[in-house]
């Protein structure tokens, strides 16, 4: 496991996303209300790019005709067949055991600490100012 600097925190706005490649693996980074999440970019169903999916909510219902939305923006819906995955766990809503996508630990680190290491930022210029999104792969 190594820590990879993949973006400045400022470049991915709330509700935004960025597709990065780490060790040849496509990984989608999402920003939801100050938190960052990282998922392997291929839907386990047929391989749709989750980075191009819509960020949506958990739909709940306590009876016919009644529904509520919770956890706004924390569920990504595959752009193809609509499989929905929890950004926090990578588990799908419909089949959480079998149909899940790999998720990765993400943190936001100040530039000063990133410069010290042991972070990998070969392709990414880092300065002591600003904050950086760091993914553990």
């Amino acid at each position, binding site marked *: 496991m190594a820590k990879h600097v993949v973006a400045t925190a400022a470049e991915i706005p709330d509700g935004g996303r960025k597709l990065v490649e780490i060790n040849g693996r496509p990984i989608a980074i999402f920003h939801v209300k100050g938190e960052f999440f990282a998922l392997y970019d291929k839907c386990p169903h047929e*391989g749709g790019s989750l980075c191009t999916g819509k960020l949506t909510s958990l739909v709940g219902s306590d009876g016919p005709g009644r529904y509520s939305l919770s956890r706004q923006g924390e569920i990504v819906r595959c752009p*193809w067949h609509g499989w929905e995955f929890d950004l926090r766990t990578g588990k799908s809503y419909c089949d959480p055991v079998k149909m899940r996508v790999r998720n990765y630990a993400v943190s936001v680190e100040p530039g000063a600490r990133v410069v010290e290491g042991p972070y990998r930022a070969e392709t990414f210029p880092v300065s002591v100012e600003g904050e950086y999104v760091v993914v553990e792969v």
Partner: protein
Amino acid sequence: MTLEVLDRSQTETAAPAAPVRAKPQRLSIIDCDFHPTVKTIDELKPYLSKRWWERIQTYGLRPRHAFVNGDPYPKAAPRAARRDAWGPDGSQPGSDLAFTQQHYLDAYDVEYAMMGPLYPSGQADQDPEFTTAMVSAVNDWQLDAWAHRDKRLKASILVSYEDPQSSVAEIEKRAGDKSFAQILLLTRTNEPLGRKRYWPIYEAAERHGLPVAMHVFGYSGFPVSGTGWPSYYLEETTGHSAACQSVVASLVLEGVFERFPDVKFINIEGGFGWLAALSWRLDKHWSRLRAEVPHLKRPPSEYLREQLYITTQPMDEPESPRQLIDLMEQVGMDRLLFATDYPHWDFDDPARALPRGLTPEQTRAICSENARKLFRL
């Protein structure tokens, strides 16, 4: 309806430009279901007379169903499309040639794609004369906007199928042009497609050696089911399978296959698993009730096995891939045609959709060789 346009600036890595793909060595495909559309309906203007262009401007398209300005059921996604298939300029999925080439034809190694324009096509409009003009315009447009600009794209002869005389005229006009690979009908017509009123279309198909493709949907004004209007899109999209069974039963029992033994039919997007059970059932009943259909000389399953091709998308997904392979063997590995349905949301990726356990020969047959023989490509 507000369409949320995808911001591509952060969804694509700088290199490579094409989508990152799972397998570097991929099989090329002949896709038997690709849906091009227009950026705006103005693209059809050059092909329509003043009268019909004014008709569009004044009344719009008026298909024979209750919701003339929309679909009877809300689709799973805007324009029923993959969310990543909208053009970089926000253009409709399947409307921009350059983007379609990069995002679809190149990305999936598509050797040939059979175009099936569904909207706007004018098929089965409330005004049959308008349908005649529109389908001809769309046929011209398929050539100018797509087939003549990329040789991988094959056009379909759209016809005003409720008006067989006009259909025959359109087929005669197009049949000599090798850019057209097939005649395209929709499955939900005013009468079941085996009925004699449609036979002039099959006669013309036979004359010119053109396959007759039947894509699900249509504007008959009747519900997809035999028992009234369903409540949900989920019911409609599943119900196509049942509707297609009626069409196939009609074609075989009315004697279309017997009368036109050289015409190949293609059922598109209705599933295929049911075909095995339908064949058994038709044969069982035929063995007892054949006096009713003396024009059939052989068991129904024999006609189906020889003359009916069927596309794979949307692929059934049983728990065990073996069960799907069993069904494929029953239907015939030489009768299945791979289809992606690009750019629609229920798209099948050729690298992922087929069940594990097919032999390389079977995979090649389904992905391209069956279509190559059928269309003589």
